[in-house]
């Protein structure tokens, strides 16, 4: 065995993963495996069925092909065991190579070991190792340990797959047959159609079974072989073997180079040493840590010990700290239950269920409360338009932004002010001011201009006295609107006299 030639990645795998490696190996060597498979099994299939027909036992072909499976297993195993070492044989070599392998184990597998769920693992052991009988049983014991369950599962899994493919073929056929050609029921189909031409149906079944077997049996062998490889990798550390071999060749190559270098360096000082005066003592090269650092590097080093102690005092690296907590001096006695309940476990489970339900109910109730609170938040609050309702409709209209300003602005504002509607009075004054400013500057009054905009506009008025008055009104309005700070009566009177309330006034 030349392990260096192996073409699969060796590493210890779980048995289930090893099965997948088997499928991958089969996929990689599909051509070689199935050419050999069909070259041998197709003639056997024809012969078996012909024999069955001649003996008037048409089921014989089906049964014989199933019985001969262990014989057929040798072909995929031969191909794969060579392909793993990168020597894929063609189908002629495979058929010829069967003579190298002993027939004893195949005879056993065909007779008393025919129903054996470990065949997939037994096959590579017996055919590839070929150990004498005494050693074989000991070897088998070692090999099957820990993977015997997986081997059996592999067998049942492959049986299942074969059945799936067999049934799939029939079901697909049934799907493709037109409705009027189909039998009325499955019972009818077996009673009439099959009985009339039983030989033909049995031969068809044998062919289907043969195709399903051809698809799955190489997979079975490949998976068994992969299990075997994996087990031997575990037992004999093949992956380590390979790595060590590679290391050995590298080291040997390195050794040659080093030897050359050493020889060179040895030869060179011999010639050089003659020139140097021999009286000068040569400085010895440092060979240990002590010599390199010129001080002891162990716990005896005082500086090191001090540094270590310093580090340990740092709270991040350790140190001592005290924790305090309260502990009961005595354990409280458990109160005995008033009376034992029948079925305590059932009662407890029921209690948990009802407890959960109660919690759920509580959560739902709180959620509902929150939801209604959110929905009704506007309706339950005290109505905000109470002061407005006290106002006469005329006043209201004059304050609303898009209503035209009253002709006597000063009178209207003063009336509002004296009726304690201070905010409305100031709003009216502000609007009047804005309108006058816009007129003065010949800019269109825009609805979305803010107080800040008007402050900026007012600064652009040529007459500084007018500008100051406009700014004073806007500021007063801002204080009232945003801070609730109102001017006194005198201040209000001052704002109401002159420009801009009296349009013609000179400020």
């Amino acid at each position: 065995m030349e392990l260096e030639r192996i073409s699969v990645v060796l590493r210890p795998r779980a048995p289930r993963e090893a099965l997948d490696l088997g499928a991958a190996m089969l996929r990689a060597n599909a051509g070689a495996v199935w050419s050999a498979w069909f070259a041998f099994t197709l003639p056997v299939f024809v012969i078996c069925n012909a024999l069955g027909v001649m003996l008037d036992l048409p089921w014989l072909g089906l049964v014989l092909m199933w019985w001969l499976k262990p014989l057929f297993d040798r072909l995929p195993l031969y191909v794969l065991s060579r392909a793993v070492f990168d020597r894929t044989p063609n189908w002629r070599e495979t058929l010829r190579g069967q003579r190298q392998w002993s027939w004893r184990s195949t005879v056993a597998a065909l007779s008393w070991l025919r129903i054996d769920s470990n065949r997939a693992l037994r096959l590579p052991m017996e055919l590839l190792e070929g150990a004498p009988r005494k050693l074989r049983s000991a070897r088998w014991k070692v090999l099957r340990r820990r993977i015997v369950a997986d081997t059996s599962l592999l067998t049942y899994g492959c049986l299942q797959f074969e059945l799936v493919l067999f049934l799939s073929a029939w079901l697909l056929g049934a799907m493709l047959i037109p409705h009027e050609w189909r039998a009325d029921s499955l019972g009818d189909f077996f009673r009439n159609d099959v009985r009339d031409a039983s030989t033909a149906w049995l031969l068809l079944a044998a062919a289907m079974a043969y195709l399903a077997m051809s698809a799955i049996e190489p997979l079975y062998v490949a998976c068994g072989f992969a299990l075997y490889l994996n087990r031997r990798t575990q037992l004999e550390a093949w992956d380590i073997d390979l790595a060590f071999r590679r290391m050995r060749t590298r080291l040997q190559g390195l050794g040659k180079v080093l030897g050359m270098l050493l020889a060179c360096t040895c030869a060179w000082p011999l010639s050089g040493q003659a020139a140097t005066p021999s009286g000068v003592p040569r400085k010895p090269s440092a060979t240990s840590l002590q010599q390199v650092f010129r001080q002891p590097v162990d716990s005896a080093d005082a500086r090191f010990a001090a540094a270590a102690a310093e580090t340990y005092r740092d709270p991040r690296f350790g140190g001592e700290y005290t924790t305090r907590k309260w502990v009961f001096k005595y354990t409280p006695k458990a109160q005995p239950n008033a009376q034992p309940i029948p079925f305590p476990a059932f009662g407890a489970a029921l209690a948990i269920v009802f407890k959960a339900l109660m919690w759920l109910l509580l959560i739902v109730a709180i959620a509902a409360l929150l939801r209604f609170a959110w929905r009704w938040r506007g309706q339950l609050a005290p109505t905000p338009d109470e002061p407005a309702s006290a106002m006469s409709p005329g006043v209201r209209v004059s304050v609303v932004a898009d209503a035209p300003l009253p002709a006597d602005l000063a009178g209207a504002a003063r009336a509002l002010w004296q009726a304690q509607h201070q905010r409305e009075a100031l709003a009216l004054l502000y609007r009047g001011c804005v309108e006058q400013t816009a007129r003065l500057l010949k800019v269109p009054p825009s609805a979305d201009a803010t107080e800040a905009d008007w402050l900026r506009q007012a600064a652009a008025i040529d007459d500084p006295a007018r500008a100051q008055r406009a700014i004073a009104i806007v500021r007063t309005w801002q204080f009232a609107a945003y801070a609730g700070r109102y001017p006194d009566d005198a201040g209000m009177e001052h704002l109401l006299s002159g420009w801009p309330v009296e349009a013609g006034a000179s400020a």
Partner: protein
Amino acid sequence: MLDTIREIETPEGISLHLRAAGALPRAQAWTVDLFLRMGVFMLAAIPLSLFGVGGKGLALLLLFALMWAYSVVCEVWLGGQTLGKRALGLRVVNADGTPVTWLPSVVRNLLRVVDALPGVYGVGLISTLIDPHARRLGDIVAGTMVIHVSELPAGQQVPSQAAVPLPVVLVADEQAALVEFAERSGQLTPQRQEELANLLTPLTGRNDSAAVRQLIGHANWLLGRP
């Protein structure tokens, strides 16, 4: 070299290894799931049968949920594992190794209809056997795959011995091989241990059990033990 691994390299230059799960473990996981769901359905159907037509309706609803919602819910909420997959140590992930999300999970489970054709999962089986990463059609469309998650039980501890410094510098693979040898030496026969150690005579300069001891010493040194 032949392997079952799908390798994904991240932008940071880290290579992730996804160990694709093949048809056999997946079929076993599916069988476990099938029996679990059948058991649940039967357990629920017996009391439900007491309630006449209404109970039958509920049972059918349960059957629908078990057939269509079970896999999706398990895959999204239980980390890509239905209970059967968990038992077999498998997991569904996106093809780039990220956890599976709602849309891919729904797609791959809806396409079971196609994979189950013609009634006994024939299409799915053939697809799984042919595809190099053992994906069924639903997996290919949804961009998912099923991988092995269970690790092999870790090897034994490296037996502690006095560390022996290595005379030459070894590359990472070789260091790993040395440590692996020390870890697994307990599982090998003494003869095999010596055989392997004798391969490295150029390194150790010794033979047989002395070489084994020295290699284990090297492994101790590599692990940073005193």
